[in-house]
């Protein structure tokens, strides 16, 4: 028995199975995971690791374990999407930690959240003075959402009644030197238009461009491979460390 070859083949199997199962479970960000999701991820990963290296048992039972856990997670997601009550039961509910500027000590204790944790989270959000906070909620993902008192909230164009233009998503027209024709077509544009725009910026060919984006106002953002001779600021201070 060639153990290395077997581990290699099992590794390939586990890698692609994990990839397929992870895609099946959706695109939740790590920061959006609840504690339970986090543990689920670790368990599924651990089973995949055992599938790869534990040659004392067949690969199949590990696969069944992996599929069972994935199916269970998928089922919970499916039920949560269909029933708000179930979703709340599984994921929990946000908890108010600060209400009308007052810290809710009982809720802090219930969530096993220390005052230091609360203050750290507030500082992460740029709040160093508690009197700026109207509401603070501990989300089910463990993140803190903060609503500032109206007098401390940043002023928006809407507050000042300043008219603004629509701002949507930018579209990639050139990526890594290659023109994305399908995106040009979407805006009824063609390569001639693009080349004309590039020439106006002193660029002879799309191949010189690393990234070109078209925003919703029709402006073209171009980033070249050559950064026009600008030296990159060196942030390292290794030399100054004695």
């Amino acid at each position: 028995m060639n153990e290395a070859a077997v581990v290699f083949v099992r590794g390939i199997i586990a890698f692609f199975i994990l990839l397929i199962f992870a895609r099946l479970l959706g695109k939740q960000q790590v920061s959006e995971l609840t504690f339970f999701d986090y543990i689920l991820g670790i368990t599924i990963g651990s089973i995949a690791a055992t599938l790869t290296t534990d040659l004392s048992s067949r690969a199949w039972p590990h696969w069944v374990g992996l599929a069972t856990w994935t199916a269970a997670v998928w089922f919970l997601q499916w039920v949560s999407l269909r029933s708000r009550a179930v979703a709340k039961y599984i994921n929990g509910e946000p908890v108010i930690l600060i209400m009308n500027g007052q810290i809710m000590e009982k809720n802090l204790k219930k969530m096993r959240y220390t005052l230091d944790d609360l203050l750290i989270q507030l500082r992460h959000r740029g709040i160093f003075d508690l009197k700026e906070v109207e509401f603070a909620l501990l989300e089910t993902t463990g993140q803190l959402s903060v609503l500032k008192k109206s007098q401390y909230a940043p002023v928006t164009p809407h507050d000042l009644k300043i008219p603004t233009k629509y701002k949507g998503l930018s579209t990639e027209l050139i990526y890594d030197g290659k023109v994305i024709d399908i995106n040009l077509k979407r805006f009824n544009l063609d390569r001639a238009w693009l080349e004309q725009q590039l020439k106006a910026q002193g660029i002879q060919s799309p191949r010189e461009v690393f990234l070109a984006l078209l925003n919703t106002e029709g402006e073209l953002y171009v980033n070249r491979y050559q950064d026009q001779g600008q030296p990159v600021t060196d942030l390292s201070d290794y030399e100054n460390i004695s």
Partner: protein
Amino acid sequence: MRKIGRFFLSKVLPAVTLGFFVLLMNSGTFFKHYGVADPVPPYFQRLPTLIIQGKWQEAAENVDKLEAAWRQVVRRLQFSEERDEINNFRHSLARLKGYVAAGETGGALAALNELAETWVDLGR
């Protein structure tokens, strides 16, 4: 055309990959019996007779052939079977060789039964 391509990449390819891996992980039972030039099970019927009759020379030759047959089949079984079972078979085979060389009927039959049992367990 793009829709077909996307459907193929997002649905068909993962399903086929999963199916292939499932078959590969369960291929032991298939490879144990099919596509082998010299199958292993007939030796479990041939060898006891030779051992009981005391035909040790012939038995030794058959054990060597059994070992060659096992080596062929294990190459394909190793990806789906337990390492311990594969090793058990190897160890029982070594024991059988020793008993046959020494001309010990009881030990040889015991080792052979052990081999047959391990063989049955492979792929279960």
